[in-house]
């Protein structure tokens, strides 16, 4: 049960509130989860006045504030199109207008196209207090248990990067049964992520064009997908979607994934 509501106007105030031991004090992003009735008495810190909702791209780094709404990602023309598409496929437009990227990082699972996309982009998460950072992949690998702070302030990833997204669902706006996201940097680095089940999306490949030839090693893939809990059908659909990205004209500068 929410017994206190705070809306700090600067980060220092927020950090001070979040450092309190009692009552248990937690950050409030879009509001989604905490608006539910909970057993324990908690205080919430609304981050809407901290200016954490900016998207900036400079010096080959794109930074997205943790309070950025998912709909802002959909409408932004500066970020990779695949990221916008993944944000759009995450949930409905009304929910996208309140849900934040910080909130998504805290709760999204393997079914989340946007979390998959952030993993493909190899985003780095900034935390306060302490100004520490952690890569999303590393944090997910630790099952989000060892967070380096109490508050996510922003995420960042390296640009320029192109992102492609594809999925299979029962209907065009249904949650994907499987999705595949590929990110390709000018340096030649490629990361392929897929999802559709479990706690988190799966990083299928990470490396240069030559290093990721194992994408096509069906045995390797089958083993990793099975471990992650994908059904036989999902595995097949994922392979199909990846196969299509490889030669597909019109993506990655007309060259396809590789």
């Amino acid at each position, binding site marked *: 049960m929410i*017994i206190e509501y705070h809306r700090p106007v600067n980060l220092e105030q927020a950090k001070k509130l979040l450092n309190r031991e009692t009552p248990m004090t937690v950050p409030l992003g*879009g*509001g989604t989860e905490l608006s539910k009735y909970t057993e324990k008495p908690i205080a919430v810190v609304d981050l809407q006045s901290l200016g954490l909702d900016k998207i900036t791209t400079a010096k080959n780094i794109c930074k997205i504030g943790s309070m950025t709404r998912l709909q802002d990602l959909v409408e932004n023309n500066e970020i990779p199109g695949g990221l916008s598409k993944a944000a759009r496929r995450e949930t*409905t437009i009304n929910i996208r207008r309140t849900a934040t990227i910080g909130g998504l990082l805290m709760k999204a699972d393997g079914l989340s196209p946007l979390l998959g996309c952030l993993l493909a982009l190899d985003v780095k998460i900034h935390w306060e207090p302490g100004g520490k950072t952690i890569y999303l992949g590393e944090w997910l690998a630790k099952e989000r248990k060892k967070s380096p702070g109490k508050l996510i302030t922003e995420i960042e990833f390296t640009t320029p990067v192109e992102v492609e997204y594809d999925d299979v669902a029962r209907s*065009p706006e249904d949650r994907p049964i499987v999705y595949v996201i590929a990110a390709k940097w000018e340096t030649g680095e490629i990361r392929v992520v897929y999802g559709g089940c479990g706690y988190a999306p799966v990083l299928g490949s990470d490396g240069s064009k030559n290093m990721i030839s194992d994408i096509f090693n069906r045995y390797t893939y089958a083993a990793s997908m099975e471990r992650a809990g994908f059904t036989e059908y999902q595995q097949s659909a994922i392979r199909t979607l990846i196969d299509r990205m490889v030669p597909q004209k019109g993506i990655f500068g007309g060259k396809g994934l590789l």
Partner: protein
Amino acid sequence: MISRFSINGIQKDFEYEPGITLLQLLRREGYFGAKYGGCSNGECGACAILLDGVPVNSCRILAAQAVGHLIETIEGIGKHPEQGWKKTEGLHPIQKAFIETGAIQCGYCTPAQVLAAKSLLERNINPTEEEIREALSGVLCRCTGYLKPIQAVMRAAAVLRGEPVPEIGEGSISVDDWSTSPKDVDHGKSTAETNGHAGVSTKVSPKVHITTKTREYHAVGKSEPKLDAVKLVQGKPAFTSDIELRGMLVGKILHSHVAHAKIRKIDTSKAKALKGVAAVLTWQDIPRVVYSTAGQSDPIPGPLDMFSLDSRVRFVGDRVAFVAAETNEIAEQALKLIDVEYEELPVVLDSSESMKEGTVRIHEEPEYVNFADSDPSKNLAAKIRIDIGDVDKGFSEADLIFEEDYEVQKVQQAHIEPHVAVSYWDEDDRLVIRTSTQVPFHARRILAPVLGLPMKRIRIIKPRVGGGFGGKQEILIEDAAAHLTIATGRPVLMEYTREEEFIAARSRHPMKIHLKTGVKRDGTITANEMYALSDTGAYGCHALTVTGNTGQKSMALYVGDGIYRKNPNIRFYADIVYTNHPPAGAFRGYGVPQGFWPVERQMEKIARALNIDPIEFRIKNAVRSGELHPFSTSWSEGREPRPEIIHTVGLEECIRQGKAVIGWDQKFNNPQWHTVEDKPYLRRGIGIATVMQGTAIPYLDMGGASIKLNDDGSFNLLVGATDLGTGSDTVLAQMAAEVVGVPTEDIICYSSDTDMTPFDVGAYASSTTYISGGAVVRAAEKVAEKLKERAAKMISEKDGVPCEKDQIKLADRKAIAPDGRCVSISEIAYNSLHHTDQEQIMAVASYVSPSSPPPFAAQFAEVTVDTQTGKVIVDNLVMAVDSGVIVNPVAATGQIEGGMSQALGYAVSEEMRYDEKGRSIDTNLIDYHIFRSNEMPGMEALFVETYEPSHPFGVKAVAEIPLDGVAPAVGNAVLDACNAEINTLPITPEKVYSALKKSRK
């Protein structure tokens, strides 16, 4: 906390708890336009308001988060233009457009849709259709299929741009034969490339192939705006929970978390001790009265197997205890404090196992009351054995026998307004139950013994209903609210959450069906046999009648040809078994969609196997006008059957017109059309299903109506019929207006209240326009007689020249003699109420039909299949319907479009799934996916009118038939696209992928 909120441009200070959501605050303060859809995850969007000009779901944010922002609710958008001496600016152009285009059905999601549209048009006055679809996609609508709301936004945008817009309501687009119109052939652009999004043409008025027997009416046949649209578009407090009663408690139900158990011990002491708890009831506290929750006429055609509370639970979600508390939070907390000790019993979830010897018995209670062949010792809720003709002889005469197994899934009605009831004692110690129900009169009758009250001490009030689709043909929570009011003496609000809708409401019956068909090589069907194993879940509500319809409607369509046409050979056997799933019940279509899935899939396969055109094959074997309904001599929903001739069958014309609109001849058997350029893995397909339904239950369904003349020449029309968003109040008013010669706006319709309105069975079986309409016409004719009688006297006395009442015509608010002399209806009213031989001109009438004339339809689907992943995109749906004379074309089209969108979910995405312990996997409207506005295929509805002679205006039913043919048409289109044989619904990518893999082997 106290904060200042800016709502609709006014600053207001409110004191509130920090944990309260914006939705809770708004509704507490009287902004009832923000609706509660049972969720707190924003799945449905009915609670949407504008925050700084953009729609957000108010259930998803804390009230405190909205402080400092501009809040707009529907109450601030527009008002009725005339409020006595006070004039307002009137309704907003968006609100007007929603009314004019028929975009409002139940109206529960309308305020949210209007706000979303406003937000869009303020940023973009010239949006594309795709932008409109996207803008509305945050708000789920289960009624409309979204076409009309989109048309409304387009129209409003044109008005706001200062452009002229065409009049609506002057009737439909009457085209004798539009089949040659080239623009109709390629009416949709929605394809795999656009992922099914947008691109459809949006026409407000439907095409109607008008029957030659229709005479010119002034009200019937016109697209009159819905009578309740003005209040609904303003978000007025018209729904059950939109009231605040002094001292009202919140009622909650403790649901079982195990699928089958005896309750060994139940300790409520901690819950009762919690501050703010007013009552906790268990099976030990209330009388043990056996009943059925099915809202049907007496005697209930099914077993009595339910108690308000029992010492045994039979599914995950079954009732364990009721709690009433001062707040929702306290009630929730109290539920957690109830200690229940279960003695778990074996669980049966597979209907095929249910009747086997040694399977655990679900109903052992001595109070169980059988109906017909129900047998609880075998877990058998109902049994059907129907033999028409000589089926075995028919099979022996066949050249080929086709046999297949099919399966249809359990799906949810998913009305956006959850089940909700408010109960209270009135000043006369009568129990009033305000409830969102389709069956107020059945509710009163069924509840009386359960509550230990004489029927006369119960009053049921049905306000506006936020969608029902059969789910509210159930006495589901009214008893729980009432028990708590009896226990506490205080008003109680009982409202389901979305999760409760999934675990503890009703659903469509899932079935396993075996179909065997005998045919001659020339395509003549010689015999047809269906066996259905139907899973009624833990209780047998609607078990017999739903499954009876499965065979009675779908197996009646194809009687065979030649000698078989006169003497068809049809067998329909069914066992309806208990399992530990949540109970099934009534759902729009009422068993018929389950039947047409196998029948229409099988017809397609047979035609293809015989190398006969699938449409010609259907027409050859389908029932024709003047023929006996084959089931009418053997089945009538558990009652005595009586032979019934089908007088009107517009099926062939439906096929002809539907083919033209979808462009069948250009696509079917055209290899080029089946491919997609540059995407060799995509294949297009086109499919058809022909279907029939019924119109009410003959000799049983009864409607009543009373009409009363007012001083000003207006009329009060009181009907027991239950408008649950379909527009039936409007259609009934149109019929009354037609007879008494006034515009529809002069009819003030009220429905329904067991104290005020005549009896009516309620809204089900597609009966209202036909049955209740019959009652309205009869009552109106009696009133018309009295009007004419008095008018003749008045006219004669005016100038001494006699005038015969039989020569009087009622039109244009006047009674007119053949020579042109006339008096107004208002003058007649004043004369009768104030001046001469005073009397109240009024009449009451009722109607029971001796027949159930079937509507017919041809449903078409176009799909694109990804042959590598199995993904299916439904690109277009077309439905041509023979529903007799169409009373209100725009409203009727809304029924078709909305029905098709529900049926589309049945076809490809909707399924209630359970784990091995009987626990529901899908408990929200995200996992359980119903279609949104931005993913709908192209849709077009058209009407082929026939004139049904058994009704004064020639009408037949329209509401349920759209549910019947979409799934098989999609299944047939998938077969046409890629030869994937899918026999089990829904048609998921995985099933298509597996079928393709199998066909390649």
